């Protein structure tokens, strides 16, 4: 593979990392909760997308129309039935640690439920474009990854516009800035929380459908992306949307370029090393401010 192809691969993987991190950053920004179930919910999205694809044979990208609403509903219901009761109980606690642990427990439940239902097999949606490549001038890239990059960037763009141009988006941002003031302005804060959690989860369905044509699905696939997403949000700045995308791209590039020149474990170490360096030089991340949240 030429260097430019490696860069292209890194970009596409990075954009997907960014997409996963977007949901994390949104939920944290609005509710101050680190969602530890993000990885498990991604796994769930991938499983649902895979089984829908296997059952119908429809192009996975089109399936997002079905998987997206399903995941939104899953997120919405999770927030309403699990998180809200604990959040209400812990109203006077500054950092809702119990909620965070709740999402971690949810992740364990989801992962092991998937293990029980689907077994530990590795599956992948072998679509017509899974193994084909696209030539862009001198650069040859895998078609699935190229489409993934485009769709991920598109989704991030739409999400940005949604937050800034629609009433619901403004409600979400207002709640994130000051929930008491938002409530005084007539915003239904609990409902906004549930919507934000639902959207954060629905974003995962986009990541899921672009991943399944070239990435194996198994019950613990979420853990792989979870840690990356954590690194990405800290790198980009907690709560920042451009930060999440840029952070994702940086991690993706380090991984793919690193893999060309050194052993896989060293590349993994390099990611953590860059992360530590950024933490020391600019602890708030590229676009973050320590006082935002």
């Amino acid at each position, binding site marked *: 593979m030429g260097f430019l192809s490696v860069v292209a691969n890194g970009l596409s993987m990075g954009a997907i990392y960014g997409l996963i991190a977007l949901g994390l950053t949104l939920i*944290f920004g609005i509710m*101050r909760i*680190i969602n530890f179930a993000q990885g498990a919910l991604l796994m769930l999205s991938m499983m649902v997308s895979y089984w829908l694809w296997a059952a119908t044979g429809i192009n996975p990208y089109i399936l997002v129309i079905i998987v997206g609403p399903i995941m939104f509903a899953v997120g919405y219901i999770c927030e309403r039935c*699990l998180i809200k*009761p*604990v959040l209400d*109980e*812990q109203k006077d606690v*500054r*950092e809702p*640690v*119990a*909620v*965070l*642990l*709740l999402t*971690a*427990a*949810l*992740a*364990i*439940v989801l*992962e*092991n*439920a*998937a*293990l*029980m239902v689907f*077994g*530990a097999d590795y599956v992948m949606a072998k679509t017509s474009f899974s193994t084909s490549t696209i030539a862009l001038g001198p650069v040859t890239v895998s078609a699935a990854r190229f489409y993934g990059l485009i769709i991920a960037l598109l989704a991030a763009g739409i999400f940005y516009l949604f937050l800034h141009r629609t009433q619901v988006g403004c409600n979400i941002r207002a709640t994130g800035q000051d929930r008491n003031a938002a409530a005084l302005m007539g915003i239904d804060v609990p409902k906004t929380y549930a919507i934000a959690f639902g959207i954060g989860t629905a974003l995962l369905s986009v990541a899921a459908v672009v991943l399944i044509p070239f990435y194996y699905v198994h*019950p613990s696939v979420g*853990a792989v992306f979870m*840690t990356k997403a*954590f*690194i990405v*949000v*800290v790198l980009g700045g*907690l709560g920042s949307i451009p930060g999440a995308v840029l952070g994702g791209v940086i991690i993706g590039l380090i991984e793919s370029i690193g893999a060309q020149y050194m*052993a896989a*474990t*060293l590349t*993994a*170490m390099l*990611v*953590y*090393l860059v*992360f*530590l360096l950024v*933490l*020391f030089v600019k*602890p*708030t991340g590229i676009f973050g401010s*320590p006082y935002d*949240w």
Partner: protein
Amino acid sequence: MIEKNNKKTIILWAGLAVILLLIPMFVTKPYFLHVIIMCLLWAYLATSWNIIGGFAGQLSLGHGIYTAVGAYVTVMLFNTLGLSPWLGMFIAGAVAVLISLVIGFPTFGLRGAYYALATVAISEGVIVLINSIGDVGKFHVGGAEGLILKTVGNSWAAFQFSSKVPYYYIILILLVLGIIAAKKIKDSRLGYYLVALREDEDAAAAIGINVRNNKLIAGAISAFMTALGGVFYAMLIRYLEPNAVAGAVSMSTQMVFMTIVGGAGTVFGPVIGGILLSLVSEFIRFYLGGQLMGLHLFVYGLIVLIIIIKQPSGIIALFDKLKERLSREQH
């Protein structure tokens, strides 16, 4: 709890002490004693985590680093140099303190969430590192294969016993020391500083508390105590598998689960949570372990989920309510 100093509580504590001391005489099956030892170890680890996670409210999700440091440093020193684990554990503790300062220095200047995420990422990095290193100089690390403790037979100097009973008394002493340390810290100036900065960092800084330094001190104490737990784990299990010693699911998250379920920021909450959750986990594994893959962890997760939803401030809150009701009935 002893503050009231009435006869009843003294009798209660004395009775508890006698029971704890006599347990090895009644529990003769090594399996059951091992389960009890693991309960006490988890209670101790949760108590250690609670210093930074509960008292100071700094959510460390990477305490597996410190158990790994404790376990690996001690075993490496013993295997290669023959250094007694009783000495090695202090070197391991010092290394853990150093690492806690390296992690804490950049992140403690920021708000809670950054620290939590940073600890996750760093502990994942440490796991990758341990998995990929075969040897450091003449020290054998073992990489992904794991590291086996050199066995020398029954020896106090080598912290190795053929019976489980000495392990029981050692972990019991360690746990009691841990609880005393937690109690002392809670009642000390440092303890009040930590509560102040947990509740409101800006207000704490405004009244002249050095927020970062106090977090660093609490983090270092917690790291040192956790490392000692790691040493005990290494001596008991005698085989270090990177993902079991340092892993998020098997180590780091467990300590947090137990502390939160028991009651974070209290002295006895982590002890209750540690014992309860490890009993539940062992019980489920015993009955469901061999069956459908994933079933026992699924049930475990479900139980934790339900406890957190029903009792977000920890099981210890139930005891407080009970005590309140009892005292109301007496008057």
